[in-house]
């Protein structure tokens, strides 16, 4: 059995009390900056010695304060995230960097900034396409972020510091990918639940500490004898963000989740920031193009025939083909949180693509509350029964 202060045990511990390390560091005089979305280029924070800390909601927390400023028919995850902020659960934060990834992210950021009083707040605008002028504009936005960060931190964000930070975060991405290789065997050596705990822990620690944790986890998992039991179906979960073990446990009661394509899973780690003469350009290009979130508008190059739709699907979702094959995925659950527009529109097209690959899939809508777990359970079980 692993020591609770290491590896998976440590990830579990951090998951259940996320802010502990951030508070320790704050007491040591470090500054902590919250970010509610994985599109925020946290390398820029690391480079200035600021600690990035992912702002999340808490599925167990009933929303009460957010009602003042956000209507009920609104992304329940961001609403919950704002609610936690308004209740000062994150009172150790020195600032927040928000980004225009989706409407709820944008609206929440405005309200957040209006109703709270952090020493630092910056909103990054982000275009919706991946065209060259869009990437250029986004690079300009990152340059603006650099200016305000420098003013706040009192330090210069030099190219060499940034390159160092990029290398560190890239190493983390690589380690996470390596960790996911360990879900290829049958049964996988690490469960979806454990991976959520690990990823959340990474998003609560400075990057170097996260990398150390990953090394521990990797060696523990490779040598473990107490791994998940084989459960029949091997699932891919797809959705916006999946950061609660309560939800993952519903899936894993009767299946092995071998890949979680969400912002609580592999999404922020699948690709790497490329080396570039202009590191800000490298960041802009990575974040805008490589994060496979439904909010970004991608379209295949103009074709000439009615097969355009299939080509379009391939260009948007083709990266899943390799994953499905290599991880021997036998079913896909498209998990949609209520009121999420980008993923809701994306979903029928993704289903078309998965149908074309012959992979069974189902769409399950849920609410970000504990009450949503029972209906979720029935639907997951029924889906598993149809593919068994």
């Amino acid at each position, binding site marked *: 059995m692993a020591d609770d202060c290491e590896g998976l045990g440590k990830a579990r511990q951090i998951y259940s009390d996320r802010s502990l390390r951030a508070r320790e560091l704050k007491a040591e005089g470090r500054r902590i900056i919250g970010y509610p979305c994985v599109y925020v280029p946290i390398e820029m924070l690391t480079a200035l010695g600021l600690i990035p800390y992912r702002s999340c909601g808490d599925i167990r927390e009933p929303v009460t304060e957010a009602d003042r400023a956000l209507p009920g028919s609104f992304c329940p995850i961001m609403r919950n995230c704002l609610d936690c902020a308004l209740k000062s659960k994150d009172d150790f934060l020195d600032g927040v960097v928000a980004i225009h990834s989706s409407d709820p992210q944008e609206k929440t950021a405005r309200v957040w900034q209006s109703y709270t009083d952090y020493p630092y707040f910056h909103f990054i605008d982000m275009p919706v396409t991946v065209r060259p002028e869009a990437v250029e504009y986004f690079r300009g936005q990152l340059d603006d972020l650099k200016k305000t960060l420098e003013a706040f931190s009192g330090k210069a964000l030099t190219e060499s510091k940034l390159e160092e930070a990029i290398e560190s975060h890239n190493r983390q991405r690589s380690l996470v990918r390596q960790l996911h290789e360990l879900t290829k065997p049958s049964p996988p050596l690490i469960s979806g639940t454990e991976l959520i705990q690990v990823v959340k822990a990474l998003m609560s620690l400075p990057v170097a500490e996260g990398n150390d944790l990953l090394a521990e986890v990797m060696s523990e998992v490779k040598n473990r004898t107490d791994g998940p039991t084989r459960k029949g179906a091997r699932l891919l979960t797809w959705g916006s963000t999946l950061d609660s073990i309560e939800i993952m446990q519903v899936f894993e009661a009767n299946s092995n989740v071998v890949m979680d394509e969400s912002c609580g899973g592999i999404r922020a780690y699948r690709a790497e920031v490329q080396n570039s003469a202009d590191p800000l350009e490298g960041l802009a290009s990575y974040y805008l193009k490589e994060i496979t979130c439904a909010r970004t508008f991608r379209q295949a190059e103009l074709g000439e025939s009615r097969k355009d739709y299939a080509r379009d699907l391939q260009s948007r979702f083709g990266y899943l083909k390799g994953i499905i094959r290599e991880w021997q995925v036998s079913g896909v659950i498209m998990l949609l949180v209520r009121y999420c527009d980008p993923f809701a529109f994306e979903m029928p097209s993704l289903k078309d693509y998965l149908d074309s690959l012959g992979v069974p899939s*189902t769409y399950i809508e849920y609410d970000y509350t504990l009450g949503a777990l029972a*209906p979720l359970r*029935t*639907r997951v*079980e*029924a889906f598993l*029964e*149809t593919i068994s």
Partner: protein
Amino acid sequence: MYYAGVDIGSTMTKVVVIDGSDDLLSVIKGPTGPEHRQLANQAMAQALEQASLQIDDIAFIVATGYGRINVPFADLQMTELSCHARGVSILFPDARTAIDIGGQDAKCMKISSGRLVNFVMNDKCAAGTGRFLEVTAAALGINLEEMGDLSLRATERVEISSLCTVFAQQEVVALLSRGEKLENIVAGIHSALAGRISTLARRLAIEPRVVLTGGGAKNTGMVEAMKEKLGCAISVPEEPLITGAIGAAVLGKEICLKTADEHGTPPAKPRRLERATFFKEEYP
């Protein structure tokens, strides 16, 4: 060999015992009540008595329904979706679509080769379940059982526009006091519910034969309203409440036989027909 299916629904608990040819040896139905944990073993005991069997004579027991977690003597739990689909196929071998209208939810199931292949369900909004009929019946001061026949006597249908069960209560009372005929209002209620369930069902590309089950299937007015909204014929089993339990028993039989084929017949599992408790007990 004998097999049993236990379906613990939110309102009714159903138990059936079948033999190897899927013939029903006993059927027990009773209200679930808050202590469904206790009732499961009682219902099972009654079913055994009716079939003149002992608990050890049953080779495999599958539990289903909302209370399926609390059947300690079951060998396996399966969702009511799979069980209804299987049960409907036993009763109607050419069934491709099953729609179950329950007191607290509505389920639509797509069936292929006798098995569930796809489903949609509504368990969020009461206005799309049997509850809609219950609540409006109470508001109009009539018995739920009378609703179906009443609706069939309508001369025209009054449209119910409220989307919410709670507001619909007010609306039907207002219609009545405005002089609308009771049977016309009741027809409108059935039509509104059928409309919502049909919209749900259409997500599955409906194919005949369509079979209606659950409490809603016992309501002739509901059956007619569904026929109209779906635009096709609808079959109703003689006993619409037990399709889940039948399916559970048959699925249990199939799993049991498959396991025996592959691994040889397992030794008889000692089973105690006891109340569920929160304390784990060690079997010898």
